[in-house]
């Protein structure tokens, strides 16, 4: 309709009827040519012109999944997986789908902010980008290099490379990387266990697709673990990829997680006893296989493992037979097994089961993830010990300026480590956060970066791709707000600083820096495209959403069964009656709480939305006089939280579980509306020998508060109008 038709005109036309053609000539010229379409022709039936699609990389976690984003008229409408990207082959998880809720979030930081002070909630953009660059320049040049620190997230990697180069040029300490997911995955412990058993601390790839029997010790590979979309594909292929067999999954975990619910057998074990169980199984399996237990498992004590883990002896025999009888058996150590006081020993024992299965470098076995085409070193995220060192320096006043990007440490670093109080001792805190998160609140300046869908960049791939590859990012829409790429801010500050700093980092802007980095790939062997100069290469890098090799380059680990393993008993902090089992919310991940649709999506096992709950075995709850939605106080030596009870039928009676992801005090309206608690407030500061936090080794108490707070669940409960509990 080119002209508007008023209601009055409409009534006139509608009322005249078929015989009134002559009357119509009395109408104005506009209404004469109006064609009225019935609304029955809804948008679903129309063709709205052509969309444009851009390939980029998802930034909701650091797995490096490729996205193709549908845009129209400069608006991003829908994210889909990039079918060419070897990590996700066209698929996405819920977080990848909801990334648009971050891009168009109403609580983004809309421009550079000079806060009125640490703690100010006022995020009005009151500074210019020139002033911001000046602040960064001063911060870099007017402090001694040792007084400058960077804390970065696990993505994006191009910014990590740039900051690493900057720190080297400046003489400042290398940047630390951190994210709550890396804490819950206990990445340092996984690396150290791999070093001890396989000789290299690199990231591993577990070939679920080819495995006949898989023992997963708390690895939540269908939820958030390292590269969930790739591992879900592996799981699907394990189940139905081969028409002649269906892979069998056994999950050892104190509560039935979303992953455990898909397992053929769920073995509810006491937290921290995973390694003892693995070693005991190893001794039984090797005994059956070689007639005598391998040296590696010679210290194992099956009876003791059974007694401490709560796994019956008969189950040990059954599981050992299962593992032994499989042509391709696999054992995976998850974060729950590693984030323990004995986590490193757990990891070693579990990884050694793979050596026993003889699956190293074999289908259905363990591999080293191929080295990245850019810098083959694996940059592992910081463990609690390294974070503690930084926090100690901040506290003592020896850090004068702290730059924070891609992570929300005030929320994601457990309170016991004391990050927030230490932040107040740092004279200049500069946050590059796109959102009004807790860390931005406690910063002096917020110079917002673009969100992932507005950014250039690249990401190395932790696992999931057989090929060596780099996932590429490009903006799919123009920046929604007055934000600026952090790489551009840093490079502008470097240029302004001049001198040797500027001559070591000559790139004028982010894209030039990335293109310089990609230079070595132009004619690299076995690339699925090559080019003689960067512009042609760059076009394809954007078009395909990255660069990868044609042939897989998975590495083969080697291990021996000759070194005896010792697995000590786990030690628990606190003297409560219940083990605390914290886990990452499968839907929210570490940073999804500000996206309303992720808040609204039900938890896969409890169907709870918008809030945090504590899972308690129904029998335990009955014994404590607790019912669904009763608010209880959970106390650990480090702190306490008040949270509503969810009577969870599939959890050990001596264990309670709380999801991580909610409990924000800032981070936008939806994060705050999702009234939850942060279980990390309960964590102690004890670390394991690999330096990771032993977050899984806690015993807590439950106290009734007498209060009630109803959890909003999708599953049916009786009497939704006016609360009523289901009849018992």
């Amino acid at each position, binding site marked *: 309709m080119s002209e508007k038709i008023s209601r009055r005109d409409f009534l006139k036309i509608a009322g005249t009827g078929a015989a009134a053609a002559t009357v119509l000539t009395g109408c104005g010229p506009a209404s004469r040519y109006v064609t009225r379409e019935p*609304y029955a022709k*809804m*948008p*679903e039936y*129309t063709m*709205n012109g052509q969309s444009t699609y851009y390939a980029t990389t998802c930034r909701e976690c650091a797995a490096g999944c490729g996205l193709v984003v549908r845009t*129209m008229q400069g*608006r991003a*409408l*829908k*994210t*889909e997986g990039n079918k060419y990207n070897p990590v*996700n082959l*066209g*698929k*996405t998880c*819920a977080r*990848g*789908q*909801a990334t*648009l*809720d971050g891009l*168009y*979030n*109403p609580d983004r930081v809309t421009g550079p902010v000079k806060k009125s002070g640490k703690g100010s909630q006022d995020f009005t953009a009151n500074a210019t980008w020139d002033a911001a660059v000046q602040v960064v320049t001063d911060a870099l040049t007017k402090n001694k290099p040792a007084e400058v620190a960077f804390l970065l997230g696990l993505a994006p990697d191009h910014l990590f490379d740039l900051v690493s180069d900057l720190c080297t040029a400046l003489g400042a300490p290398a940047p630390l990387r951190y994210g709550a997911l890396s804490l819950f995955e206990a990445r340092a412990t996984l690396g150290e266990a791999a070093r001890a058993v396989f000789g290299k601390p690199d990231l591993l790839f577990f070939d679920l697709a080819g495995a006949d029997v898989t023992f997963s010790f708390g690895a939540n590979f*269908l939820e958030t673990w390292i590269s969930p979309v790739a591992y*879900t594909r592996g799981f*699907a292929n394990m189940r*139905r990829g*081969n028409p002649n*067999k*269906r892979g069998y999954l056994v999950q050892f975990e104190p509560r*039935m997680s*979303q992953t455990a*619910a898909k397992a*053929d057998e769920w073995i*509810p074990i006491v937290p921290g006893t995973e390694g003892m169980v693995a070693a005991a199984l190893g001794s039984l399996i090797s005994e059956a296989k070689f007639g005598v237990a391998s040296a590696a498992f010679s210290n194992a004590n099956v009876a003791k493992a059974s007694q401490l883990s709560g796994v019956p002896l008969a189950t040990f025999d059954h599981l050992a037979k299962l593992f032994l009888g499989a042509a391709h058996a696999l054992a995976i150590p998850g974060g729950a097994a590693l984030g323990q006081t004995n986590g490193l020993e757990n990891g070693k024992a579990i990884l050694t089961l793979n050596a026993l299965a003889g699956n190293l470098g074999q289908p259905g076995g363990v591999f080293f993830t191929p080295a990245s085409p850019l810098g083959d070193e694996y940059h592992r995220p910081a463990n609690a010990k390294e974070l503690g060192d930084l926090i100690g320096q901040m506290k003592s006043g020896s850090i004068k300026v702290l730059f924070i990007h891609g992570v929300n440490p005030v929320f994601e670093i457990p309170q016991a480590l004391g990050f927030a109080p230490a932040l107040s001792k740092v004279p200049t805190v500069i946050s590059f956060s796109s959102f009004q998160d807790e860390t931005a609140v406690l910063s002096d300046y917020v110079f917002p970066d673009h969100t992932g869908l507005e950014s250039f960049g690249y990401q190395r791939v932790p696992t999931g791709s057989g090929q060596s590859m780099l996932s590429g990012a490009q903006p799919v829409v123009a920046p*929604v707000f007055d934000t600026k790429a952090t790489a551009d801010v840093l490079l502008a500050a470097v240029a302004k600083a001049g001198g040797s700093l500027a001559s070591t980092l000559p790139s004028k802007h982010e894209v030039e820096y990335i293109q310089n980095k990609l230079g070595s790939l132009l004619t690299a062997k076995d690339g699925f495209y090559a080019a003689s100069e960067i512009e042609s290469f760059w076009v394809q890098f954007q078009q395909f959403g990255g660069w990868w090799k044609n042939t897989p380059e998975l590495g083969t680990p080697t291990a021996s069964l000759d070194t005896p393993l010792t697995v000590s008993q786990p030690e628990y902090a606190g003297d409560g009656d219940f083990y605390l089992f914290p886990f990452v919310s*499968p*839907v929210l991940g570490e940073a999804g709480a500000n996206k309303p*649709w*992720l808040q*609204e*999506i*039900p938890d*896969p*096992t409890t*169907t709870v*939305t*918008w809030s945090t709950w504590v899972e308690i075995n*129904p029998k335990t709850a009955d014994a404590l006089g607790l019912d669904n939605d009763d608010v209880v106080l959970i106390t650990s030596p480090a702190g306490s939280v008040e949270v509503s009870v969810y009577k969870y*039928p*599939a959890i*050990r009676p001596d264990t309670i579980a709380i999801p991580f992801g909610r409990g924000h005090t800032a981070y936008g*309206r939806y994060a705050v509306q*999702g*009234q939850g608690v942060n279980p990390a407030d309960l964590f102690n500061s004890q670390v394991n020998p690999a330096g990771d936090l032993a977050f899984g080794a806690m015993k807590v108490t439950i106290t009734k508060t007498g209060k009630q707070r109803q959890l*909003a669940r*999708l599953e049916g409960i009786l009497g*939704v109008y006016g609360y009523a509990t289901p009849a018992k």
Partner: protein
Amino acid sequence: MSHAHEHAHEHQDATPKALSATGKWGMVIDQDLCTGCQACVAACAMENNLSFIGEDDVAYGRSMQWIRIERYWQGEYPKVSMTDYQPMMCQQCGNAPCEPVCPVYASVHSASEDLNVQVYNRCIGTRYCANNCPYQVREFNWRDWPLPEPMSNRLNPDVTVRQRGVMEKCTFCIQRIHTGENTAAAANRDVLDGEVVPACAQACPANAITFGRIDDPTTQVAQLAQDSRGYHQLEEMNTLPRVTYLKGGSKHGSNG
């Protein structure tokens, strides 16, 4: 809620196959593959301009999801297990209980696509259809749900934005069906198998959802619908659902 899972086991040897051949568009969901990850739920919400409604209204049972993942518990600890995750959406019944009860013909059967369609501008919000739907997959707009700016930027222009007082439900992504049909017509050919993919199936990391022409025996969806693991939800009600579920857990390769 449905008791479909029990039926999954009842129909191990029954043959619900004949029904799946009817209709035009159909879907097959493999419950052995579904991991309950909710990617389909998020993908559906983003594609179809669904409203999020906030904690209080979710607690009242008003959540607006065209697809949801059901799960049920069996037994008691330690012999407790969860039934297979069961994605539940409009089954696009050939004999739909929601259709005859609508006084204003808002819930009608599309002759061209053989789908159950909802005409939003006819709907007067009696909610009879939701009351009569045995699958409980119809969602009612109890309010004009707020969408603060700039969030409206992501709204899909191919899909009507609904308002208060209107019933809505899964459409099998009819906008994608029409785009596929238009593209095929412009090229003077038929729609290819796999050319039309609804948002849920496109996102699914486990490839548990297959979609296509159920009336063409050569398509992947038509062949999967003949799998001996297949069953229909509440099929004894003779609703003629167009979605076939494949029960999980069995030994793969032994055809059962």
